[in-house]
């Protein structure tokens, strides 16, 4: 479904991804863990074409996408929804207009169908009835869920989450994590979640990938990761209650 082959990304003289190879199967939930600056978000941004790799290939649904033009990439973004670290909602638009934004641009659907899809997407994130509110009138956790609804409204086959629980309180963190699991299973999407949260990864992921200095240092099922002897994995596991 998604395959990264020898992915290299440089920023000036700093190489963030150093020939990364990774294959993700359809319907899999993969957590990508690592300390800050190891290239986790860069990996996601390369997937949706916000950044382009300097070397290597990205295959999505059997198609090499890293050399596509900006216009050709629209098709990839249509099936590849990204939920950002910030809610990234448009302040001047209502919740309804925010969620409808992608539907209007990607699909140009009739208004009646857009209304229905917006309501469904908000129901999926357990936020019905907030359509007319502005993002500023919602709590940060609610904004994150609206942002997720905006991505879900397009019914993507692949969901990319960039640190979805950063800056959330523990209760909202649990709610968002449960939502990721519930939606990925129910909608049968392939999900890549970039996170620092090993506890959540062990509970939800089908596979955990640990990145360090732009390379994969460990990967496996939660059970395999628990038994890993890689020092960085050990550091992450030290946070997990016995």
């Amino acid at each position, binding site marked *: 479904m998604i395959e990264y082959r020898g992915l290299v990304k440089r920023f000036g003289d700093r190489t963030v991804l150093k020939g990364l190879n990774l294959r993700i199967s359809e319907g899999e939930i993969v957590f990508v863990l690592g300390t800050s600056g190891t290239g986790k978000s860069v990996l996601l941004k390369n997937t949706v074409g916000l950044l382009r790799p300097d070397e290597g290939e990205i295959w999505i649904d059997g198609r090499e996408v890293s050399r596509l033009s900006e216009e050709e990439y629209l098709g990839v973004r249509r099936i590849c929804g990204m939920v950002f670290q910030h809610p990234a909602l448009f302040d001047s638009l209502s919740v309804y207009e925010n969620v409808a934004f992608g539907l209007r641009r*990607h699909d140009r659907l009739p208004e009646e169908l857009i209304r229905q899809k917006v309501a469904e997407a908000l129901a999926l994130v357990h936020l019905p009835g907030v359509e007319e509110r502005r993002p500023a009138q919602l709590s940060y956790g609610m904004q994150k869920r609206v942002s997720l609804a905006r991505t879900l409204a397009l019914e993507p086959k692949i969901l990319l989450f960039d640190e979805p629980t950063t800056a959330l309180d523990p209760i909202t963190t649990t709610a968002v994590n449960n939502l990721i699991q519930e939606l990925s299973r129910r909608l049968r999407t392939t999900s890549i979640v970039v996170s620092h949260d090993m506890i959540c990864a062990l509970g939800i992921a089908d596979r955990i990938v640990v990145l360090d200095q732009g390379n994969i240092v460990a990967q496996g099922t939660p059970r395999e990761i628990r038994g890993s002897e890689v020092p960085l994995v050990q550091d992450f596991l030290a946070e997990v209650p016995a």
Partner: protein
Amino acid sequence: MNHLAHAIDEIGRTTMFFAALLKTMFRRPSRFGDVVDQTWNVTLQSLPTTAMAGFFVGAIMAVQFTMQMRDFGALGYLGGLATSGTLREVGPLLIAFMLSGKVGAYTSAELGTMRVTEQIDAVRCLGADPLQELIVPRFLGIVISSSLLLGAGLLMSVLGGMTLGHLFAHVSPEEYVRHIPTILTWPSILIGFAKCAVFAVVLATICTYRGYSATGGAKGVGRAVVTTAVSTMMCLVVMDWVTSYLAEAVMTLARGP
């Protein structure tokens, strides 16, 4: 040397951004409603300050010219000279400075915040082109509204000049207005509006580029606003010289040998 290389690099990047913006404007026009909204917002935001500034500029010009012209017994031409000077030189520059302080800083901060909070990335992921969706409407809004504001500022400057001319030089409003068409010719009006359009394009390009390319969180947004203010002021002064020189050359050419 590093500063010079950096400045040249920035000029190059801004020019490329302007070219991309123009290409988007003609190939994928923005929604008409968005352009109208932006024009309306910019005009409303700056109208009171521009009107007030226009009034006082007219007043200052009237006072300055009065002091010179009284000695020559030519106070009857006060209205024409003050209005012509305002329209050709002070008006466009003043309005561009006003807009750079208000709209330029605001636009740069707004786009910078959208950049660092990933809203611009979200626009791309949701199937839209940020240049078409966000930049072109703001760019056109600033360019169109600056022409409207020049008109409003000029009217207010005539009012200001007339009021001060009456109070300070005892020139009646009728006499003040009577000689405006004598001195204020069509070429002067065209030069004024052309200058205003050039300044507006410079301002709109710089502030949208700075905001759009902001990086580094809140600090980056602050930096974008400051560099917008500094580079806009520098470029406006340089462009004022260039446009004045060109206008003079065109006028000389039109008058013939």
